[in-house]
């Protein structure tokens, strides 16, 4: 395979995946979900330009997503009212420019310093904008938000973007363009200097770059792409409300990006896809889905700071070099322990929900893993607790074997590298 083909192949596969996905998952639910995933991929990638690439931890990135979306929705309504020839596929550009404008403005204030001060300013700005959204009602539409109708816009090549499938392809096209653009940015000297600023701002300054200027530019780029994502969300949902720029949305994008893995380009993509999937599926199954998100996030922070992508890359390397078989026995030992612990924990959480929120007179029976668990019966609590305890205890006992196996793998990898 030539170098060119090696470089192009992943991109061709990505494009193919975008085109073919609706052919495989063609139900209405999966189309809606995939459109949302596309939006969130752009949003998470834009967030990782800050957190992963430049080392800026923002707690208010949804501001640019939301403001981009609001400007986009006002642009759509204005274009419809004025009968102006602005088809829907160009709206994300409007949103992106709006995000860029606000990013420019707020970036001037917030990128003076990195670290905790930056995080706090981003939090403050986020709260400032989201609490203003209840005051400036004409622009933000108060509690109910601003609605639009994408089908009333000028058709684009005959498409009116009424059916969800057309919206999906619109989102997918923008998503692909944004992925390529953001990836290309990480390969430019600018992208490399962002990494330098993340690693050591002093040395970046010594070779003649201003860390502040680099942070500012990265911030503007991130806000631009967040604005594009916001505008796509506006087209997709046909409504924007103040929740979209609040702390919860900012927290969600942080969760996605970090769980996916901030150290790899594909991390935020993985995170956005998985978290959106869980969000849609779990919210039907359990009331406590946000609790599981929180626990998942804490688990990743505690045990796997590289995120899912980091974990996958570690194994991919071992697999490529033919060393993965050394891990198999220890994994086979630990997996049942972890599974038992998880099942016990989930059973306890779900029983707690049934127990504390039952109406008087109603039972608190929970259908779980093919069993009927009664949250009022001590026996089911004891069983769940025993499962959890056994899982944790055997997990702790067996974990050193996993470490040993990894030690052996690393030893052989190093041996091969030296040979």
């Amino acid at each position: 395979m030539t170098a060119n083909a090696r470089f192009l192949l992943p991109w061709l596969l990505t494009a193919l995946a975008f085109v073919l996905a609706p052919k495989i998952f063609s139900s209405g639910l999966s189309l809606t979900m995939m459109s949302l995933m596309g939006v969130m991929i752009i949003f998470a990638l834009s967030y990782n330009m800050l957190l992963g690439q430049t080392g800026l931890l923002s707690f208010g990135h949804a501001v640019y997503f939301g403001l981009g979306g609001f400007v986009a929705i006002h642009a759509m309504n204005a274009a419809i009212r004025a009968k102006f020839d602005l088809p829907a596929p160009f709206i994300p550009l409007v949103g992106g420019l709006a995000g860029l404008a606000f990013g420019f403005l707020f970036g001037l204030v917030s990128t003076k310093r990195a670290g905790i001060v930056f995080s706090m300013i981003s939090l403050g700005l986020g709260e400032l904008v989201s609490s203003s959204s209840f005051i400036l009602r004409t622009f933000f539409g108060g509690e109910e938000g601003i609605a639009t109708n994408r089908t009333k816009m000028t058709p684009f090549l005959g498409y009116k973007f009424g059916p969800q499938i057309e919206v999906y392809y619109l989102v997918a096209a923008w998503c692909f363009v944004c992925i390529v653009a953001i990836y290309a940015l990480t390969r430019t000297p600018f992208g490399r200097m962002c990494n330098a600023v993340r690693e050591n701002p002093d040395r970046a300054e010594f070779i003649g770059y201003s860390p502040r200027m680099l942070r500012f530019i990265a911030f503007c780029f991130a806000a631009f792409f967040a604005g594009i994502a916001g505008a796509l969300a506006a087209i997709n949902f046909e409504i924007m409300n103040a929740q979209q720029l609040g702390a919860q949305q900012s927290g969600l994008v942080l969760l996605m990006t970090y769980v996916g893995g901030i150290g790899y380009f594909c991390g935020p993509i993985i995170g956005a896809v998985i978290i959106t999937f869980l969000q849609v599926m779990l919210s039907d199954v359990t009331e406590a889905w946000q609790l599981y998100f929180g626990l998942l996030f804490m688990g990743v922070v505690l045990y796997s700071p590289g995120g899912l992508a980091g974990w996958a890359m570690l194994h991919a390397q071992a697999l490529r070099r033919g060393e993965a078989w050394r891990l198999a026995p220890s994994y086979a030992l630990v997996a049942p322990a972890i599974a038992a612990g998880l099942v016990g924990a989930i059973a306890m959480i779900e029983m707690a929900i049934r127990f504390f929120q039952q109406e008087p007179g109603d039972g608190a029976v929970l259908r779980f893993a093919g069993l009927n668990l009664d949250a009022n019966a001590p026996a089911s609590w004891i069983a769940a607790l025993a499962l959890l305890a056994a899982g944790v205890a055997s997990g702790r006992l067996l974990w050193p074997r996993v470490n040993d196996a990894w030690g052996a793998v690393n030893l052989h990898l190093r041996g091969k590298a030296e040979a």
Partner: protein
Amino acid sequence: MLQLITFSTLNGVLYGMLLFMMASGLTLIFSMMGVLNFAHAGFYMLGAYFGFEISRHIGFWPGFVVAPLLVGALGALVERYGLRRVHRFGHVSELLFTFGLAFVIEELVQIFWGKLPVDYRIPPALDFVAFRLFDTTYPAYRMFMLLTAVAMFAFLLTILTRTRVGLIIQAALTHPNMVAMLGHDVPKIFMVVFGVGAALAGLAGVIAGPALVTQPGMANLLGPILFVVIIVGGLGSLTGAFVASLLIGIIQTFAVAMNTSFAQLFGPNAPPFLGDLWQVTIAQLAPVIPYLLLVLMLIFRPTGLMGTRES
């Protein structure tokens, strides 16, 4: 007018002292460990809910004592088994850990006590009118809150400046390695400070719960304002946190009491593009004011009122 000023000042000082009870722990933890604890307001909420649960079974006063201790013990556990673990991954991981913890605390509270506010009542012994001024009454419970907060402040100040333990804590703030060299167990000091900070937040929750509303959103309402307080006061400065707490408490209370809008001051015709802003009263602007203050402070005086360092 005089009535408004008197009561707003009283309420403002009270709110400020409540903020300080939490901000003091937050700023101490930050200057010692470099961790901005996102879950601090979560501990405040847990204090309120523990207090409510205990008061439901045994009474308010046992809750007043036990709930903060419980929250403090929980805080110490979080430090020992959570934060200390992520410490080796750096400050960002610690920050993210507490961020996730805040989220989990909120969700757990919703599971155990539901999404609606709970009926956490003022104890009957304190449910009377303290004094009457300009035909307006002032409830005794608020005086009790104020006294508790002031007593707590005096207690903290005495411990920090007048005892050996306080001396070691102050030394560990600036020279943790030196303190460890002298044979003190610095990780244990961190754990204790984290626990005491959490207990203080819990105490604030216990006394604020009956006066404000005890509901799952209470941590999110107060959390960001706490950060504003410790940044405006200057990161790591206790005196600064005190001044900033009172400042923000008083400003917000006064703003809430004022029902003037631009329209009333300058006539009903708004300049173009300012239509919304023209009708807004100062009371409605109150939630925005702390954040405006934060942004202005960071632009013009990034070290905060009394701080010495920027980050």
